[in-house]
């Protein structure tokens, strides 16, 4: 009887400790989401299947597909450190059944006198997309993000150290906040290879850290590409700045340069170090009646030098408008994109095109999100004629329904 009582007391003590642990919020947050799609597409053979189609789901993919299975873990470590892990599977011919898209440690000390610093160490997205603002680096507006966001998700990841300094003017009675960002990174030398292989695409598939993307098969290149490798031992960098007007408008600029040596080659992944540089700018304005306008622009170049210097200039612009009524949202974006290989728009490797996406979504807030999207992309890709014997010009469209269920909690 006495022993039993003691057990009861000790288990009550344990419960109390656990409760304190939980309520103090040092507990980890986790999320698990399953996103299923119903797809009707007339897309050309997808870039994911070594084709030059611009869509993730082509005309062979009609039916029910896995959009994304995602697991995320955020673990506070003391007061100001935290660890973040994002794992996903897209159910295609990737290397690993489930893999990481981001994994990093964050140090976010408390602001002092209006200033705050933040450090991130690990693998994560550079702070340039004002579109991919929902959990899992997804766009909350449409199923398929802009060509710019799709490309960042496909080829760009910071694997290194990033520092941010914020001036929190709105906390000092002003109308503006400012932020400066700088990062040093490695393991992003193949960035640019997909632009040269298949060009811009319209998709929501993010390349995993140890995964790969399908690509056009040529004598020079292997069919599959791995994006996160260090090839030349030279670190890259980016610098960025952000200005925010209250919580209404946000302007973001970023200059990225992976400083790759275009003569360097990696036999193990049969790829070169692609010297990739770009400038990106984005402006997002939100109004009190839940309208959003988002403008994005990106311009850059990528080059390799296997025997002569080969250069691809790339350029993309996007405009998005959305209107929200509580849990319901309508959104549309228009994208324009262009790649020029060796300054000649008629060469294989060059392309130009534009796309429209229109989506309705309903986010119940708790577990369910439904989205229906129609997308149409028009593109002129000379490589289709040279490598595939297809007409270079194509119009592809798809209708896609996304049903997502999310579970989250903490322990």
């Amino acid at each position, binding site marked *: 009887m006495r022993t039993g009582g003691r057990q009861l007391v000790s288990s009550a003590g344990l419960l109390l400790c656990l409760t304190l642990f939980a*309520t103090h919020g040092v507990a980890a947050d986790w999320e698990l989401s399953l996103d299923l799609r119903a797809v009707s597409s007339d897309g050309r053979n997808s870039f994911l299947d070594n084709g030059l189609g611009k869509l993730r789901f082509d005309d062979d993919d009609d039916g029910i597909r896995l959009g994304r299975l995602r697991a995320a873990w955020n673990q506070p470590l003391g007061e100001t450190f935290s660890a973040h892990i994002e794992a996903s599977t897209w159910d295609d011919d990737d290397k690993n059944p489930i893999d990481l898209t981001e994994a990093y440690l964050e140090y976010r000390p408390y602001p002092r006198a209006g200033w705050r610093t933040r450090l991130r160490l690990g693998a994560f997205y550079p702070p340039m997309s004002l579109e991919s603002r929902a959990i899992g680096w997804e766009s*909350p507006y449409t199923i398929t993000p802009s060509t710019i966001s799709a490309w960042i998700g496909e080829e760009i990841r910071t694997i290194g150290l990033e520092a941010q300094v914020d001036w929190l003017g709105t906390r000092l*009675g002003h109308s503006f*906040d400012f932020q400066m960002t700088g990062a040093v990174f490695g393991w992003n030398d193949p960035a640019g290879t997909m632009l040269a292989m298949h060009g811009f695409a319209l998709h929501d598939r993010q390349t995993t850290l140890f995964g790969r993307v399908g690509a056009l098969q040529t004598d020079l290149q292997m069919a599959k590409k791995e994006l996160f490798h260090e090839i030349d031992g030279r670190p890259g960098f980016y610098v960025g700045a952000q200005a925010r007007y*209250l919580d209404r408008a946000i302007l973001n600029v970023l200059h990225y340069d992976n400083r790759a040596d275009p003569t360097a080659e990696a036999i193990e992944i049969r790829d070169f170090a692609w010297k990739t540089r770009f400038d990106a700018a984005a402006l997002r304005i939100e109004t009190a009646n839940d309208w959003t306008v988002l403008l994005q622009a990106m311009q850059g170049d990528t080059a390799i030098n296997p025997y002569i210097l080969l250069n691809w200039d790339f350029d993309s612009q996007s405009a998005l408008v959305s209107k929200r009524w509580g849990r319901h949202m309508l959104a549309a974006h228009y994208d324009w994109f262009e790649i020029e290989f060796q300054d000649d728009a008629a060469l294989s490797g060059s392309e130009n095109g534009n796309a429209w996406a229109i989506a309705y979504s309903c986010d119940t807030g708790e577990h369910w999100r439904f989205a229906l999207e129609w997308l149409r992309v028009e593109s002129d890709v000379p490589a289709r004629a040279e490598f595939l014997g297809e007409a270079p010009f194509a119009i592809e469209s798809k209708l896609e329904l996304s049903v997502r269920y999310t579970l989250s909690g*903490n322990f």
Partner: protein
Amino acid sequence: MDQVNLAFAPDVLVIPVHSTVQFPNSDAISHQVYSFSSARQFQLPLYRGRPYPPVQFDQPGVVTLGCNIHDNMIAYVLVTDAPFFGRTDARGQWRAADVPDGRYRVRVWHPLLNEAREVDGMVDVSAAHGAVSIRLSKALRPAPLGSRPHTWDY
């Protein structure tokens, strides 16, 4: 002052000096409350629920609050040593009761004031009556939006 749907509720609190405020978090996600205002500097490490004792405010002034995770969250605690104080209603009106006769200075503060100078006015109270109307010279700055889904800007 609660935290609901990634916003402080209420967003403005007027309290007398030496009073205390509890900062519960009713959201399912954690928040981290800070102030670096000179009237009261404090931090509440990442939490949910109501784990911390109330915070005491001993100096008059404006204390601006933020969450170190969610930068769109902002709120204000106005700590005052005035004998009469309060928050105006939606029509901008405020009434004080039991004010002794005399001449009083009425000071107006709002987090979105756009004025270059302090906004105030004088009022004479006699036989428990007196009124003053104070007009801002410029419109207020836009109010925070504060209605985005919690899965955004996580």
